C-alpha cells in the first residue's frame, strides 16, 4: 500500500488491486493508524473496491479497525451507475448517535445537587444487559408506530415537545421505514429496550461547557460558558443489531446473483435498486427511527430528573447519528447525482445555508456532537462551507487498545477512584465494563477534533468536560 502525504492532514492511498477509487485519510502523522496492528487502512482500501463508489473511500481522523468498513469511514456510491448499499457500511448499531441537551444551570449550582442528580439518573436510566426501558410499550403495534415515526411518534404520545424535533436530524423521523423486512426476532429484541442505554461505549454524561471557541455559533446552539449539559450516546439497541445481522446474511448469499465479490464478507452488498437493498434500506430506516425515539426517551428521563431536583428544564441542542446510509444529491464533475452515502462512525456536518437545516441553524451550520472517551472532554463542532467527504466529519475518540487489553491492564477500582478525584462521578458500570472503556484505551479526542478542523471537516464551537457519567 502506497500512502502519499497530500497535506499535513490529508493522505492518499494510491489505487491498487481491485480499488476503483483512491483512499483519502484525513489525519495527522500521529493519528494515522498503525498499519501492522490496526488494519484500518486496509479496510479503507477494501471499501474503495465497492461497485459504484465515487471520488474516494474516505477515512476520518478517528478511523480505526471495524469489520468490513473501518469505523470512521465514509463512502458514496452512484445509484444510477449500479452503486451498492452495504449494511456493514452502516454498522450493527444503526443510527447510533449523540443527543446533547442544556440545563439552565451553572457548574456551582450543579455541585450543590450533583450527588442527588447522579443517583437519580442512575435509577432513571435503564442500562446494561437484557431488557429494561423508559418506554414500556403496550405491544407490537406501538413498537411498529415507533419504527415508522421515530422521535416524532414519541412527541405525539406526549413525551417532549415540538421543539425537540426541529433540533433533531431529519426532524426526528427517517422517511421510508418499512416494517415488512424487519424480522420477528428484531421486533422481539426491540420490544423491551426502547429508552435504554445498553452497554459498551454508550453513556449518559453530565458535562459543563468549559471552553467556547465560536461565540456566535455557540449562542445559536444554546451553549454558554460554565453551562451544565447532558450528553447521551447510544443507538438502536438489539433491534438495530438484529436488522444488520439479518440483512448482511441475505446480501452475503445474494451477491453471486449480481456478480459481486468483496474482500471481506462483512462488506456484503447489493445494488441500491435491487429488492435486497430496498428491503435493507426500509428496515434500516425503521431501526434509525427506533434509535431516534430511544435517545429522545432517555433525554426525557434525564429532563424529569433535572426538573424534579432543580426545577429547571433541559433544552435540546441537537440529536445526530454517526452510523447511517442516506440517499443524497451531490454535484460531481459538474453533474448532479443521486448517491448512497455510507457513514460508519462518521457524522454528517451540513454547512451554513444547507436546505436540510432548520431555519434557526441556517446561519451557522449543523451542530456536530463529538463524544470523548469516558472521563475526557467532548466537543461540539459545526459544518462548514465546502466540507469534504460529502459534508462528513469525525465521531469521537478512536480505540487504540482492545477491550481485552484494557480489561487486563486497567484496575477498575483504581480507575473509578481516579475519575472521582478528577471530579467525575461514575454510576452503574460493571468493573470489567469500566476497565474496557478506560481513557487509556482511546486516542486523545482533542487531537482528533483539532485535526478534523485543520483538515477542513468542520470548525470547533465548544468543549465540554464531564462531571458525572452513567455507564452501562
Amino acid at each position, binding site marked *: 500500500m502506497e500512502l502519499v502525504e497530500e497535506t499535513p492532514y490529508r493522505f492518499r492511498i494510491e489505487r491498487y488491486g481491485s480499488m476503483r477509487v483512491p483512499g483519502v485519510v484525513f489525519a495527522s502523522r500521529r493519528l494515522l493508524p498503525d498499519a501492522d496492528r490496526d488494519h484500518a487502512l486496509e479496510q479503507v482500501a477494501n471499501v474503495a473496491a465497492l461497485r459504484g463508489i465515487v471520488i474516494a473511500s474516505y477515512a476520518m481522523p478517528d478511523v480505526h479497525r471495524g469489520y468490513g468498513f473501518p469505523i470512521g469511514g465514509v463512502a458514496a456510491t452512484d445509484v444510477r451507475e449500479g452503486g451498492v448499499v452495504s449494511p456493514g457500511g452502516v454498522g450493527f448499531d444503526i443510527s447510533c448517535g449523540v443527543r446533547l441537551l442544556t440545563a439552565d444551570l451553572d457548574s456551582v449550582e450543579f455541585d450543590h445537587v450533583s450527588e442527588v442528580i447522579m443517583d437519580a439518573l442512575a435509577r432513571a436510566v435503564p442500562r*446494561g444487559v437484557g431488557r429494561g426501558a423508559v418506554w414500556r410499550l403496550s405491544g407490537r403495534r406501538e413498537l411498529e408506530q415507533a419504527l415508522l415515526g421515530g422521535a416524532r411518534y414519541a412527541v405525539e404520545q406526549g413525551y417532549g415537545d415540538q421543539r425537540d424535533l426541529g433540533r433533531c436530524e431529519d426532524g426526528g423521523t427517517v422517511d421510508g421505514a418499512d416494517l415488512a423486512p424487519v424480522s420477528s426476532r428484531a421486533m422481539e*429484541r426491540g420490544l423491551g*429496550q426502547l429508552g435504554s442505554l445498553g*452497554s459498551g461505549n454508550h453513556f449518559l454524561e453530565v458535562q459543563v461547557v468549559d471552553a467556547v471557541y465560536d461565540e456566535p455559533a455557540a449562542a445559536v446552539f444554546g451553549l454558554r460558558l460554565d453551562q451544565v449539559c447532558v450528553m447521551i450516546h447510544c443507538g438502536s439497541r438489539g433491534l438495530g443489531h438484529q436488522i444488520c445481522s439479518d440483512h448482511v446474511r441475505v446480501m452475503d448469499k445474494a451477491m453471486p446473483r449480481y456478480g459481486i465479490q468483496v474482500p471481506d464478507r*462483512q462488506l456484503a452488498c447489493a445494488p441500491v435498486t435491487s429488492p435486497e437493498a430496498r428491503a435493507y434500506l426500509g428496515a434500516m430506516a425503521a431501526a434509525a427511527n427506533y434509535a431516534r425515539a430511544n435517545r429522545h426517551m432517555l433525554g426525557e428521563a434525564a429532563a424529569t430528573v433535572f426538573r424534579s431536583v432543580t426545577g429547571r428544564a433541559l433544552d435540546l441542542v441537537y440529536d445526530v447519528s454517526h452510523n447511517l446510509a442516506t440517499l443524497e444529491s451531490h454535484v460531481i464533475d459538474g453533474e448532479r447525482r443521486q448517491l448512497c452515502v455510507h457513514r460508519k462512525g462518521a457524522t454528517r456536518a451540513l454547512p451554513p445555508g444547507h436546505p436540510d437545516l432548520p431555519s434557526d441553524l441556517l446561519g451557522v451550520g449543523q451542530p456536530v456532537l463529538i463524544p470523548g472517551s469516558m472521563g475526557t472532554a467532548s466537543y461540539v463542532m459545526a459544518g462548514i462551507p465546502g466540507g469534504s467527504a460529502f459534508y462528513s466529519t469525525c465521531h469521537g475518540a478512536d480505540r487504540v487498545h482492545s477491550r*481485552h487489553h484494557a480489561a487486563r491492564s486497567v484496575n477498575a477500582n483504581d480507575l473509578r477512584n481516579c475519575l472521582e478525584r478528577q471530579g467525575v462521578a461514575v454510576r452503574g458500570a460493571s468493573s470489567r465494563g469500566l476497565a474496557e472503556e478506560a481513557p487509556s484505551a482511546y486516542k486523545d479526542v482533542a487531537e482528533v477534533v483539532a485535526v478534523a478542523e485543520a483538515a477542513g471537516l468542520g470548525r470547533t464551537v465548544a468543549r465540554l468536560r464531564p462531571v458525572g457519567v452513567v455507564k452501562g
Partner: protein
Amino acid sequence: MTRPERGHRELPHTADIRIQAWGPTQESCLSEAVAALVATFADVSGAREQRCVEFDLGADTEEEALLGTLDEVIYLLDTQDVVPLGADVERGAARLRVRMPVARVQDVDIVGAAPKAVALHGLRFSHETGAWRCAVTIDV
C-alpha cells in the same frame, strides 16, 4: 504445554470481542463457542439453573450452525433476560439439537459488555488436524 482436547479463549480485537473455540467434534466445538461467548460478559460459576432452553438448528452449513447457536445466546439475553450456563449439542436424525441450561441475568455476575451481534468478518469454522476449530468476532 499441550492444548486440552476441547476449550475456548478470548483473542484481542481493537473494536470488539473475538473468541476462539475448539473440540474433537463439531458439537463439542459449538458447546465451547457458547462458553466462550458467555465468558466475555458473565461469570456464571455458582449460578443456579432456572430452566432449560432447547431448540433445533435449521442450518444448511457448519457455519450457519455456529451463527445460529451464538445468535440464540444473544436473543435469549435480549428477550428473556437469561444467560446460558453451557450448551449440550447433539446430532439428531436431520438436525443438530441444542440444550442450554439458563440462569436469570440477575443471578449471574455481569463482568463485561453485552454481546449484540455475530459478525461475518473473519468467521472461521473448520475441521483441521483432527479437531474442529472456530473463531468469531462479536459486536458489543
